[in-house]
């Protein structure tokens, strides 16, 4: 709160002292953490959050005061830090894809499932696996844009601010990711049709 009793803006918090900045931390730390944890897991996410806010504090004078929210800027810092985890993230996604592609560990369908439930569950698992695989295959820059859009729910303009790129670049990167994801989905759909026609996912 500022001295007039109104909620302080992010710009005011960034222009203030350490306690003001701590309020910004209170406001956004969990959000940044959740995003980072989805990408690289909770342990590394803690490092990312700590580093993001430390850097933000050191570079608070660089914040564009015409922006209404500091969140896209913080996402941008976090994304730069996450990029260093690109290989780890890719490895984790690939492992995720492997595990989800065979959720029972043997390729068999649980015996107490109805046939419909089994297919539905495996359908979901394989969609997730396919998605993980597609995400793993995306170049880091495209993955950043996609996940800021889909998980952080930033607008094109906010992504552009976060990553210091033009809106056109955001658009073109998202278009490319759409194409990749659509292809991955189509590939899975084709595979699923084949599997169903030939008697199940097992084996």
């Amino acid at each position: 709160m500022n001295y007039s009793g109104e909620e302080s803006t992010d710009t005011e918090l960034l222009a203030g002292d350490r306690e003001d900045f701590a309020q910004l931390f209170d406001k956004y730390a969990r959000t940044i953490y959740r995003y980072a944890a989805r990408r690289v897991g909770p342990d590394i996410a803690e490092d990312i959050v700590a580093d993001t806010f430390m850097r933000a504090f050191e570079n608070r004078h660089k914040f564009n005061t015409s922006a209404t929210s500091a969140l896209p800027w913080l996402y941008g810092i976090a994304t730069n830090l996450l990029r260093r985890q690109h290989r780890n993230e890719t490895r984790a996604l690939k492992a995720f894809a492997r595990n989800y592609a065979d959720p029972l560990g043997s390729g068999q369908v649980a015996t107490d499932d109805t046939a419909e439930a089994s297919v539905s569950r495996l359908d979901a698992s394989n969609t997730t696996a396919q998605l993980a695989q597609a995400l793993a295959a995306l170049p880091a820059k495209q993955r950043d844009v996609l996940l800021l859009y889909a998980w952080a729910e930033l607008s094109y303009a906010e992504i552009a601010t976060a990553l210091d790129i033009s809106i056109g670049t955001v658009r073109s990167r998202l278009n490319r990711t759409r194409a990749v994801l659509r292809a991955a989905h189509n590939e899975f759909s084709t595979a699923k049709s084949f599997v169903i026609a030939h008697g199940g996912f097992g084996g």
Partner: protein
Amino acid sequence: MNEQKLPPHIAESLAAFNTDVPEPSDKFLLRTRNKLTTAPVRRTSTLSRVVRWGAVTVTVGVVGAIAISLLPADPKNPIGARPASAAAILREAAENAHEVEPGTGSYVHIQYQDKTLIGVPINEDGTPLSNDRQSEYQQAKKLYYYDNVVGEQWISVNGIDDMTGQETLRHSPELFEGTLADLEKAGISPGPPVFTMVPIPNQGPARGMSIRQDDSEIPAGDPNHPSRLSPFMNPTSDKLASLPTEPAALGARIEDDLRQRNQPVTKINMLATVSRLFGVGGDALMSPELREALFLVVADIPGIERFDQVDLAGRKGIALGVEEDGLRQEIIIDPDKSKVLGQRLIVVGDNQTFPNGTVAHSSSFTANITTSQPNVD
């Protein structure tokens, strides 16, 4: 804004993907918040602190001085914001090695700055021990003072054997103990910086002893001196190209090099060898593959730890080091640029002469390839 949506089935899958993550713990949030409200702001020094360490012989100064370099530790220098482990930081530096392009030209231009505490062996009356009493140097009483050196080197890309290199030096003393009168009595002129320009390699035998007990000085007179033959001490493009780029093999090669130079194969010496290679111009000559392997070799040194974050000439670096026998050798790197910025040697634990935490040697440097050097008279 014309924002195209993701196809619904993809958007749905993506929204549901990996949502099962825990909330941050209150303990973590509180700890991090406290750090933000209490940690000092990193200093952004404009002071140029480009220091060369262990480079080609520079035997300027006090004859027989013991080259113990000390910089006071900076307690205000906070732990850096990058929370990753030493090994993770080094792997990051290794990953970024391919962003660094080796240059082309005739000379490696090294800029450095050094602040070294020299122990001058003195008699009881404060006058310097004479040259003919060198055997007594080790046990003699000493007067310690800082020798600040700012210098530049132009070393042929063919190494110091090319004999066409040169070095400029600006020496200036600074009190560590005693008075200016004590310094003068010990034979050290407390006057303004002394500028000299010398050829590389310098003539004359190397003088002095280091608490590192290493062979960082290469005597000019012996073309077959092991340090002169070493790719780590006297690098050339060809020598570096002959080194293995698989980390385990490169580590073994460094160990061999230490043995050939009659140095013990210790953690400190392994780290010091890598640091020295960067400091004597190897940084400008090595391939990305070698650079990558060097950082991975350091990552594999047992006990390598991250210490703090430092700022050298506006260059932010992270100090990573190993402790051994009362000393900690540190290498200061910029993982983003895959660069070694400098090194430090710190006294740890009980030491009769220096307090725990004393930075016993500190240096930083930059190296670039140039096509020419200033004219030498």
